[in-house]
C-alpha cells in the first residue's frame, strides 16, 4: 500500500473515520475467512481455497493500521470474536459468507473513494476493485455496482 497519506499526520477526522471503517471491515474479513477456509480448504481443489484471499485481507488490514497510526490516530482493535450473519455448515454457505465479507469490504472502501485526498481515493478504488473481483469469483456472477449494492444487513457484528 502506498500513498502520500501514509507518511503524514495531516488527515482530517473524516478521512480517519473512513480508514477506521475500512479497517473494521478488513478485520471482520480476516475473522470470517478463517471460518470460510476451515469449511472450504479441506475439500477445495488446489488454488480454489480461501487462503490467498485471507492473506490479502491480512495485508490490507496491516496497511490500514499503519496508515492510521502514521496519521497520528489509534487504530481501533478488532473484537475478539464476531457473530456470523449466516450459519456456515456447508461449502455453499462458506461461499455465501465469503461474498458477504467481500461486499462489506467493498462498501467500506467506497467511503475512501468519497474523500478528496487523491492517494486515499486511489487506495479505495484499488481495494474496491480487488474486493469486487473476489466477490464475483465466490458468487460466480457479477453485479453492476460493486460497493454500492445493498448489503449492510449482512455485516458481521462483534460477538
Amino acid at each position: 500500500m502506498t500513498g502520500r497519506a501514509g507518511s503524514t499526520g495531516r488527515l482530517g477526522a473524516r478521512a480517519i473515520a473512513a480508514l477506521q471503517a475500512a479497517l473494521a471491515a478488513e478485520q471482520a474479513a480476516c475473522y470470517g475467512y478463517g471460518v470460510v477456509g476451515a469449511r472450504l480448504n479441506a475439500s477445495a481443489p488446489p488454488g480454489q481455497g480461501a487462503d490467498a484471499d485471507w492473506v490479502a485481507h491480512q495485508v490490507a488490514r496491516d496497511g490500514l493500521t499503519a496508515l492510521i497510526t502514521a496519521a497520528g490516530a489509534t487504530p481501533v482493535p478488532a473484537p475478539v470474536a464476531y457473530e456470523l450473519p449466516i450459519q456456515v455448515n456447508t461449502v455453499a454457505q462458506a461461499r455465501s459468507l465469503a461474498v458477504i465479507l467481500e461486499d462489506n469490504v467493498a462498501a467500506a472502501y467506497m467511503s475512501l473513494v468519497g474523500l478528496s485526498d487523491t492517494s486515499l481515493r486511489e487506495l479505495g478504488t484499488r481495494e474496491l476493485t480487488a474486493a469486487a473481483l473476489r466477490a464475483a469469483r465466490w458468487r460466480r456472477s457479477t453485479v453492476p455496482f460493486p460497493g454500492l449494492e445493498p448489503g449492510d444487513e449482512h455485516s458481521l457484528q462483534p460477538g
Partner: protein
Amino acid sequence: MIPLLASACRGVQVLGAPPPAPPDVRQLRTAISAERVLIAGYRAAIPRVSADASASAALAGLLAEHEQHLAQLSSRLIVPAGSADSAAPKATAAIPIPAAMPAALAALATAEQAASHRLATQLLGMPPSLAQLLASISASEATHVPVLDALWRSP
C-alpha cells in the same frame, strides 16, 4: 446559432460564446461515450457467439450491466441548454469485433480492462459522489474481464 440579448436602451448585443462545461461534466460525458462504445461492442459480439448458448447468456448479462451503467451515468449529466458542451460528444472509436468467437471475446475483455483503468484515473478529479459511481463502474468492468477470459479460453 448565436444567442442574442435584446436591450431597450443599448440596442441588440451579441453575447459571447457560452462558457465551456466544467471539467467534471466533460469527464462524465467521456464516461458516457465510453459506455456507449462498450454497449455497441457487446451488441456486435453477441451474434458472433450465437452458436454457444453459455457465451450468449453471459454476454447478454454483461450487456445488461453496461446498460445499467449508462443509465446511471446519464442520470447524473445535467447540462444547461445552450452551454458549449451540450451537443452530443464526438463518437469514441468503436471496438473492432473479430468474426471468430474467441477473438471477439478477447477483444471485449481487452476493452473492458482498458475502460476500467480509464475510469479509475478519471474519477480522481471528480466530485465525491461521481467518483464513487465511477469507481463502482470501474470495479464492475474489471469483474467482466475474468468472465470473458474464461469464455474464450474454454475449449
